[in-house]
């Protein structure tokens, strides 16, 4: 089995968890005897290629198309480079705009024909343009290497267009992998409709949709209207090989309860602050830390100040490199109160460090972690109760730390990717 895989990032240069997951997946697939060609928009050359072959899309000119420009464009006509916003147009005007757009696309493509496009591979302002260009290059790569793979696998919406282009041009089956949906990025009535449209299109055209949890599977089925028969859950795993737990000398004497992640609406920072205030009413011998940054950070700081707990509730700002592990090593309880979390790797990291974790039932991780404490994200009383219990009853904390450690060490990509291999086999004729 050989896979053409479209990703957006790959360690060591990553902005989010997607790159780490991709690395685990290609390594796990290699273990299961599956070869992968991993395409990414902007590779640096220092990626670990022991388990996969990395193709840097920035190095590939769009020039080996066998068909004419028109034929190529006909197959990938869903791709719009640049802005495709058309506000309030009447039918005549709309028709004119469409014609104009078509002409512009041919022009754009003719210009870019034979050219390389330098991707930033980041999540910047011209993300939409990069997504579209990535699809053009992705289609080219698929045509060039037509005989080197059996199935196409695309990770998250940024790469769905590339996956679709590859499928349209080669006729090979497409598997898309949903690590997160628009509903995990914004609240229900505040989603990016352009991203939603790309996601929906990818899911509809794909032969199989892989989700990282049943929670995400339900969103894909109910909110995107996808046929349940083609949606499969493959839970994430985590690769701890070669990881030594850090020993960090503690400064504060009190036990530390930690929130670590982006401070945004869907991570539920406010529930953590409310729970902290409740615990602090009962005992002052504890410190809370909110590590990370995000658009809700300033609001969170004001919230804690209003509750009068700022001398026991600390903010660290964005943590880099080993500071993240240092923070876990300093923690006695980890809390992930996410309102919506497709999976959530951070409690696994915490438990691997021997830190008992409290996670919201609205997270994918809750489906696989038996020894994490589970509460509804809105139930700050239950959250406070669990925090207090873990701080006050050493037997409970020791037990959950020990069992949690073993549990997360057993979650291996080798197992998850065996399931992924079955998914490939189900679509390759």
């Amino acid at each position, binding site marked *: 089995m050989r896979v053409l895989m479209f990703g957006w990032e790959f360690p060591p240069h990553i902005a989010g968890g997607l790159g780490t997951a991709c690395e685990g997946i290609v390594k796990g697939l290699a273990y299961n005897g599956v070869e992968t060609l991993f395409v990414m928009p902007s590779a640096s050359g220092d990626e670990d290629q022991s388990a996969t072959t990395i193709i840097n899309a920035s190095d590939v000119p769009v020039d080996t198309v066998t068909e004419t420009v028109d034929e190529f464009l006909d197959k990938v006509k869903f791709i719009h480079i640049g802005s495709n916003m058309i506000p309030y147009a009447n039918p005549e005007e709309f028709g004119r705009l469409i014609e104009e757009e078509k002409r512009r696309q041919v022009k754009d493509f003719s210009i870019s024909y034979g050219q390389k496009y330098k991707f930033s591979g980041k999540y910047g302002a011209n993300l939409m343009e990069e997504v579209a260009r990535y699809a053009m290059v992705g289609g080219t790569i698929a045509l060039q290497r037509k005989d080197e793979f059996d199935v196409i696998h695309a990770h998250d919406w940024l790469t769905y267009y590339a996956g679709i282009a590859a499928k349209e041009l080669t006729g090979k089956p497409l598997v898309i992998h949903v690590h997160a949906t628009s509903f995990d990025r914004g609240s229900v009535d505040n989603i990016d409709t352009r991203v939603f449209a790309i996601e929906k299109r990818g899911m509809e055209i794909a032969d199989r949709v892989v989700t990282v949890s049943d929670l995400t599977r339900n969103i894909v089925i109910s909110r995107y209207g996808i046929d349940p028969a083609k949606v499969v859950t493959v839970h994430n795993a985590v690769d701890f090989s070669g990881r030594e737990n850090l020993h960090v000398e503690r400064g504060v004497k009190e036990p530390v309860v930690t929130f670590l992640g982006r401070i945004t609406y869907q991570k539920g920072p406010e529930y953590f602050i409310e729970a902290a205030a409740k615990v602090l009413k009962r005992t002052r011998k504890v410190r809370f830390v909110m590590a990370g940054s995000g658009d809700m950070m300033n609001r969170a700081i004001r919230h804690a*100040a*209003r509750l009068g707990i700022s001398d026991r509730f600390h903010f660290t700002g964005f943590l880099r490199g080993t*500071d993240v592990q240092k923070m876990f090593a300093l923690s006695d309880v980890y809390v992930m109160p996410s309102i919506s979390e497709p999976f959530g790797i951070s409690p696994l990291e915490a438990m691997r460090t021997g830190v008992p974790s409290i996670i919201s039932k609205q997270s994918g991780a809750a489906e696989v972690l038996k020894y994490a404490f589970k509460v509804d994200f809105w139930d700050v009383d239950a959250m406070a109760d669990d925090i207090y219990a873990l701080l006050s009853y050493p037997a409970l904390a020791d037990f959950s730390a020990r069992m949690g450690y073993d549990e997360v060490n057993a979650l291996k990509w080798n197992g998850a990717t065996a399931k992924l291999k079955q998914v490939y086999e189900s679509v390759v004729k």
Partner: protein
Amino acid sequence: MASKSICLYFQVHQPTRLRLYRFFDIGKDSHYYDDFANRTILRRVAQKCYLPMNQLMLELINKHKGKFKIAYSISGSALEQFQRFCPEVIDSFKALAATGRVEFLAETYYHSLASLASESEFRHQVEKHAARIEELFGVKPTAFRNTELIYSNGIGEMVYDMGYKTMLTEGARHIMGWQSPNFVYSGETQPHLKLLLRNYNLSDDIAFRFSNRSWDMWPLTAEKYVNWMKESAKEGDVVNLFMDYETFGEHQSAESGIFDFMRALPEAVVKDGTFGFVTPSEATRKYKPVAGIDVEDPISWADEERDLTAWLGNELQSEAFKKVYAMTEKLAIVNDPELYSDFGHLQESDHFYYMCTKFFSDGEVHKYFNPYDTPYEAFINYMNVISDFQTRLDEKRAALDVKETAVQELAAPAKTVRRKVAKKK
């Protein structure tokens, strides 16, 4: 002899800026200050302002043989930094003091907001400051100015109670109404306390507008300025020009001509003959108060509002303020000089100023003085320092308890015996 007067007073202060103090530092490192920034900034301001301006003032005082007088208030925090980083500034102030034409005012040693939080802490800091001023300059202060000219009836009463008969504050529009700031006033609830009110229009012409080329009055000359003072003081006895000393050479650069303006001003005043120069204590001896000024809610010289919102205007500031002053009592019990010194520096009003979220109206001024990018960073950093300080204080307090218990245990048997005896009766 001129019947009207000009009272020139300069505030000298430098905050003790905190270093980047992260959560990871709590309990591990109790050095809170950014020595590098403090030294660099202090030396820069000394070169640009304190040293050349002191030199100029000394020349003018000598030249005008008693006709030119000025007043200073130098915070304890600034004095400490001079001593550490640039002792020649202290020497130049001593030289000014030796002329006998310079009055040094009393204030809170740490340029703090203690007057709003704790009377005992307020008194303690004022006494500490007065003692230090007397030690350095040989004169015990008789006039008082509170941090940022903060004043209310209640603060006035405390100040008078400490023995000061003259106090400086802001001629805030919402307090003065139609009344002119160019008279001596008295406290409403403490009529023996005489008040000098800052003429903010004329003061800000120098402090804020001097180098502004889009100002329709630019450029400002000494003659023009004397005419404005005459106009303003048509009705009035004394024009009170109160400003930051750093105005000269730092906020308004030497290139703007601010030093030349100051060099020319005394001569223009003397030549015109309408005004003489007085120090604050002389002003209140020379002129009788014309009315009482009633200030229920504290006023200050800051921002458009002339109130406390620059330091205590949002929930971050109130939280930090509450947390720091909640420790006052424990500190008194522990009575440890090293802890008290940190406690004092953490009270500097500047730390609260950095947390101000009034970005819009006076944001420019706030940004100028702020080492932090956002008020949130200022708050986080400050609270981390406070957390470490609390821990140290609690440890010292606990150590005291252990000692006391030991003493009590020694005495305990005797008590038990006595109680038993009592029961038998």
